[in-house]
């Protein structure tokens, strides 16, 4: 990978490694991991390292950028370039990084507080611009690093250190926020299902443009069991829908439940008892022109509905960094590579003898 516009070559030394395929170990740093025992972040870290190896992008071409919070310690543990920045600003730093070197594979790791409280503004604008980044939002619905205050995704009524009488705030939905910001790739997955996590992250990484993945992540210490209603083994069948593009939306025992829309509202139907034909139920289409279906699926939540997981939306749109580079290329094609002498001498000039 070379970058012709950078005068300094990025590949200064010959390939020193062998041509063996990359493994997870190639992305493991020597830094001691300091998350609490049993934290869902471990699972996400393992899977991310595996996916990075699968993608076969060498570690020196990868950069992980984070903000502040438990999940934002992530870059220290991945043996790639990393930038542990300030609270909420990772998307902005990653935008500058990606624009300055579009060859890089840039990952943003953020949390519910970092990405959707202090940094919501940057998140929304990054998604709208479609900068080619992979954004992983680890949602544990709690402030962990500051020891247990409610977060913007905490449930209404949730009792925490800073809401002893119950939170009086409605939670923000990461997926619905991303859809509203016109994100081109939006998915939801969970720490407790490494296979689903891996396939979702790989799809996200292969998408060109901003990929936004909400990862439900359990905080053992301050919010244990927050996602039991959808992730616990006994709730798997009734609590979650696994979305597949082009396939009917199914859940329940033997996948015999589906959804229909009545009066603009989703309604659960049982295929064996409600007299609804198989092909009359809702099909998933992640590439639909309208984001309405994705929004409808994203809003499904217990107790009335299961929660949907997988890729809600995956559409193609030119990326910000690509468009920016196009303008640079076009300017060079039109005016030639910048001539400093001509620039400085432009306009009305005069000579003093």
């Amino acid at each position, binding site marked *: 990978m070379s970058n012709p*516009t*950078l005068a*300094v070559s990025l*590949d*200064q*030394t010959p*390939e*020193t490694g062998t041509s063996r395929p990359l493994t997870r170990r190639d992305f493991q740093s020597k*830094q001691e991991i300091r998350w609490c025992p049993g934290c869902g972040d471990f699972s996400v870290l393992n899977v991310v390292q595996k996916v990075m190896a699968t993608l076969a992008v*060498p570690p*020196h*071409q*990868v*950069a992980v*950028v984070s903000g*502040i919070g438990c999940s934002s310690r992530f*870059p*220290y543990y991945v*043996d*790639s*370039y*990393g*930038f*542990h*920045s*300030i609270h909420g*600003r990772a998307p*902005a*730093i990653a*935008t*500058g*990084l990606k*624009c*300055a*070197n579009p*060859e*890089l594979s840039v990952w943003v790791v953020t949390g519910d507080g970092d990405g959707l409280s202090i940094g919501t*503004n*940057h998140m*929304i*604008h990054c998604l709208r611009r479609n900068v080619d980044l992979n954004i992983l939002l680890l949602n544990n619905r709690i402030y962990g690093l500051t020891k247990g205050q409610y977060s913007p995704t905490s449930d209404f009524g949730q009792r925490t250190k800073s809401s002893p009488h119950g939170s009086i705030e409605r939670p923000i939905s990461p997926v619905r926020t991303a859809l509203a910001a016109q994100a081109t790739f939006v998915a939801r997955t969970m720490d407790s299902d490494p296979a689903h996590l891996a396939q979702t992250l790989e799809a996200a990484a292969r998408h060109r443009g901003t990929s936004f993945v909400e990862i439900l992540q359990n905080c053992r210490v301050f919010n244990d069991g927050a996602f039991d209603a959808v992730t616990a083994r006994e709730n798997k069948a009734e609590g979650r829908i696994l979305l597949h593009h082009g396939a009917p939306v199914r859940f329940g025992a033997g996948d015999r439940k589906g959804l229909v829309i009545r009066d603009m509202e989703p309604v659960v139907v049982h295929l064996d008892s409600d007299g609804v034909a198989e092909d009359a139920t809702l099909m998933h289409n992640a590439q639909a022109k309208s984001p309405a279906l994705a929004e409808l699926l994203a809003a499904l939540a217990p107790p009335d509905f299961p929660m949907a997981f997988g890729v809600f939306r995956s559409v193609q749109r030119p990326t910000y960094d690509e468009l920016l580079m196009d303008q*640079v290329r076009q*300017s*060079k094609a*039109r005016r030639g*590579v*910048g001539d*400093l*002498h001509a*620039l*400085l*001498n*432009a*306009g*009305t*000039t*005069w*000579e*003093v*003898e």
Partner: protein
Amino acid sequence: MTTDIDTCCGLVEVQHATVRFAGDSGDGMQLVGSQFADIASLVGNMIRTMPDFPSEIRAPAGSLAGVSGYQLNFGDEQVSTPGDAPFVLVAMNPAALKVSLGDLQPGGLVIVNEDEFTESNLKKAGYPENPLADGSLEGFRVIPVAMTRLNDEATRSTGLSPSQRARCKNFLALGIVLWLYDRPVQPVLEWLMLKFAKAPDVMAANGAALRAGYNYANTTELLRVHFHVAPAKLPPGRYRRVTGNEAAALGCIAASHRAGRKLLYASYPITPASEILHELSRHKEFDVLTLQCEDEIAACCAALGGAFAGAIGVTGTSGPGLALKTEAIGLAVMTELPLVVINVQRAGPSTGLPTKTEQSDLLAALHGRPGESPVVVLAAATPADCFHLAFEAVRLAIRHMTPVILLSDSFLANSAEPFAIPDPARLPELRVPTPKADNGDFAPYRRDPETLARPWAMPGMRGLVHRIGGLEKQDVTGLVSYDAENHRRMVDLRAAKVAGVAQSIPPASVEGPAAGDLLVVGWGSTYGAIAAATRQARAAGQAVSHLHLRYLNPLPHGTDEILRSFRRIVVPENNLGQLASVLRARLPLEITPWPKVTGQPFLIREISEAIQELLSRE
């Protein structure tokens, strides 16, 4: 100017002259003002300009709030400010007259468009009586010209509509002033041909108006005299006119070009810094990436992300934006990345006076960050100096791996002067060594022993993979460290690195004798007024010198010795005494602040008053 215009006749030689064009914001005053500046430059004058436009985008026509002015001082090489008081005022309507009259020299010329002194326009300007008739302009030489009517006649034969033709009268006014100062019309006609090549009717109408104004003044003997302004003895070379913001943009491009890096300029629109973004966004062929970000914080972070990737990361702003960038600048201090922040100061605090000038962000730039957070601080002295200091800011940022704040201000941003165009090949080479991938023992915080800079290893480079962040770093390895002794060492190292920049910059030097009765210390845009006033004092035999600080942190070597060599020190600043307090904290000397916080730059006269006041103290 003391010429008695009623007893002389013919062409009178003067050393310099100050003219102000004032009219409605739609009257094209900025355009003819800058044209006049170009003509003055072309015939060899030193110039310095100052536009004054309303903060409202479209204030009601004829209102006081809608007056747009362009002041120009031109003459020999002594010209260093836009002029204390205009000798000639061109007033296109009653509001323009009312707004500007108080600034005019006693006995000055007032050229008014008498056609616009209608009852309705007089009322909009708040004149109960017509000032052209009620004797209130006694003490000035008033020259009423029927500009609207003359312009209408001159442009009638063109194919334009009456409203299009009416817009040409600024060129009629310019024609009159060109005659008054014995300047040629031909270069303006040539400029019109280029500018309106695709609109020949517009070109012809403006040209006709220009000639009509010139010929009217010539044939009616508007005055018995007209003036010839002495040319300047400027160093040989090719020149162009630049504003501070243009110059800063060019300096950034030149520096990134000489560094062989992309320039990533990230900014959020803010008065008076936006023109830097506008200018840079037009030059993508130089690998200039401009990002208009969602806010000031994002702009600073994107520039820092660009710097991490190996680009020249620059962000620009003004006071309110500098406040928002504070945390990200702290991150740049901790990660020791080269980040340039251009702060075009305006009158604050808060939104303040967005279009007025002030120098009140000095302490914010020096100290306005939590933690021990040293940065390099530079301040441009003149519009053209913005080029050199933008270049210098990049040089120091990448040589020392540190954030640099470059202070400009609203006055410099909009004021113009001749810029001696440098030969690009003779600008310093800014390439920094790329770290070598050594066998697995690359250490991101292993410092250069001379500059204490850490290596600039960019993502994408094999063998140099590392992590940085806002947590304290272990010396050399750059790993996260909570160790107390390590923190103390790193705080000291970061301070020593920035202090060591003094080795890379020129020592302090004074204009005037190296010791004496009074030292006038300035920084930033006060340069011109202080230089002129101290020169005048020395011409009058007074032992007054001028120290101008373009480097505020670290201060150049020799600063303390110079300060100690004078009996008294006065520091004129467009704030309540910020540099004075910095200098007092440094040396036990009596240092007198001389504040001006009216949103306007210092006049030469005001600095002279400070000098005489200080010299008269016993």
